[in-house]
């Protein structure tokens, strides 16, 4: 909103300055450096060799780049809808009149507190084919052992399950805070008008939560595209590379194979991809006002 005297630009700049300065130094500058490197062949420790678009041309011909990107997409497709729905349902529960809602809020959020390596190791252990709890239970019930992490059809789903357990609470908090901002009167008048639970949900809650949903979904998508840690800990990218996500491939090329330029090029392609998806997403969401 404009104020008398119209010092908007000055104020806008002043308020933004602290963050923008830090951002420029600690994020933008390294990012630009990384982009610069993508045009070189560099093994980190020796001098660089300029090769123009060489890395980009190579990556477009690299089968593993595509399979890794595909695996990342698989992860995004599986986890995004489930995490959104799960977070939303949890938030509904936490804002309901159930006597369990307090316990629910804690139980659903607490996993988020654990670090990525802990999540990976814990769930790798639960899913362990021969000694993990799940299979031990299965065997007790007479069912065969399941290769949760060793069966290529199941591995990504298992990693996704662990991720959902880990981060659904984050979505829950965002949605819950948004729900709390909706005043009780709005619900009251709807109920007086005779609307049932699902009707209220559809016509009031969800529309009023739209900004939160839009933000949450975007954050979710961006974060999912950068998945790496928990997949790596649980499957090592296996079986036979079937869960190797793009970030793992980027990391390996940079730090295990010392192909830093190539690694950067792939990272920038991913960056651009995420950027394009985000812009398109925002445009679509904006249009549906």
């Amino acid at each position, binding site marked *: 909103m404009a104020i008398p005297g119209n*010092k908007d*630009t000055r104020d806008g700049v002043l308020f933004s300055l602290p963050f*923008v300065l830090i951002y420029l*130094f600690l994020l933008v500058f390294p990012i630009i450096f990384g982009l610069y*490197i993508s045009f070189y062949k560099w093994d980190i420790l020796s001098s660089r060799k300029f090769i123009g678009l060489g890395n980009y041309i190579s990556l477009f011909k690299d089968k593993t780049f595509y399979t890794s990107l595909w695996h990342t997409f698989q992860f995004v497709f599986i986890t995004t809808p489930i995490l959104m729905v799960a977070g939303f349902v949890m938030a509904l529960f936490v804002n309901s009149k159930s006597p369990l809602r307090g316990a629910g809020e804690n139980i659903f959020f607490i996993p988020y507190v654990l670090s990525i390596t*802990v999540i990976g*190791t814990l769930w790798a252990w*639960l899913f362990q084919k021969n000694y993990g709890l799940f299979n031990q239970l299965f065997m007790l019930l007479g069912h065969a052992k399941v290769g949760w992490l060793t069966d290529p059809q199941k591995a990504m789903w298992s990693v996704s399950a662990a991720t959902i357990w880990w981060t659904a609470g984050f979505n829950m908090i965002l949605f819950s805070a948004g729900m709390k901002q909706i005043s009780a009167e709005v619900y009251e008048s709807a109920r007086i008008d005779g609307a049932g639970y699902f009707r209220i949900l559809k016509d009031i809650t969800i529309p009023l939560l739209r900004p939160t949903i839009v933000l949450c979904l975007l*954050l979710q998508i961006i974060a999912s595209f950068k998945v790496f840690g928990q997949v790596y800990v649980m499957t090592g990218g296996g079986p036979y590379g079937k869960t190797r996500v793009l970030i793992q491939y980027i990391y390996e090329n940079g730090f295990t194979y010392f192909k830093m330029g190539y690694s950067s090029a792939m990272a920038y392609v991913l960056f651009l991809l995420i950027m394009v998806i985000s812009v398109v997403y925002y445009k679509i969401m904006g249009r549906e006002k």
Partner: protein
Amino acid sequence: MKKKILFIVALVVLVLWIFPLVWLVITSLKLEEDVLTDVFSIFPKRPTLQNYAKAFSSTYILKWLWNSTVVSVATMILTLAVDAPIAYAMAKIKFRGRQILFWFVMAGMMIPFQVIIIPLYLQFNSYGLVNTLSAAILPRLALPIGIFILKQFFEGIPDELEEAAFIDGSGRGRIFTTIILPLGKSALATVMILSFINAWNDFLWPLIAISDTAKYTITVGIANFQGVHGTDYSLIMSGAVIASVPQFVFYFIFRKKIVEGIAMTGIKG
């Protein structure tokens, strides 16, 4: 009747949901030899605090917890200090370049961290900050996620409140500190918790930026419980518990603040 069914369903879901965490703690109380064989006992047949003893015998574990506390608290405070003003500007101040700024800042979240490790390290080295806790703190301040969460909430604060204050002669700064911040308490608390947790759990960068074992954060330190050629699950789980307990404590303390903060809001009408 419906209520009873829902209650039972909810209860079952909650029990199943908390179960892996319970399993984590149970495993940490098992002897290494029993981890593979004593799978089903709700409580280990031969419970032991051996893993915890082993973890604490590591000379530095308390120092690590302290380092993590310093890093996480500093990150949390600084994140708020830096994110809140720009979030307010983006939400409420119509200035030129606002939209471009939004995308500029959003883009920062899209870059994979792996690609900036080396340039960031070289930078910190030139500042003379490698192997310091500051190195662990500063890069996180450039992460914009807190801004978006705060912006979201600030946008929900009615303009009328600001207008009234302007008419009364308040300037932007005053409005920010006396109106926006108090009303955005729940959002601020949320961002505080999230930035604390993310700082605490940060692994790769602190690992690379800090070389002295004494200066490690707890997440980096306990990673070494994983062996080169074999996984001692019980020890790793005990490390996980030790590393997570402070965060549980922090969360429970702050949870009350969120609830209070939310109770104070509710002006939307």
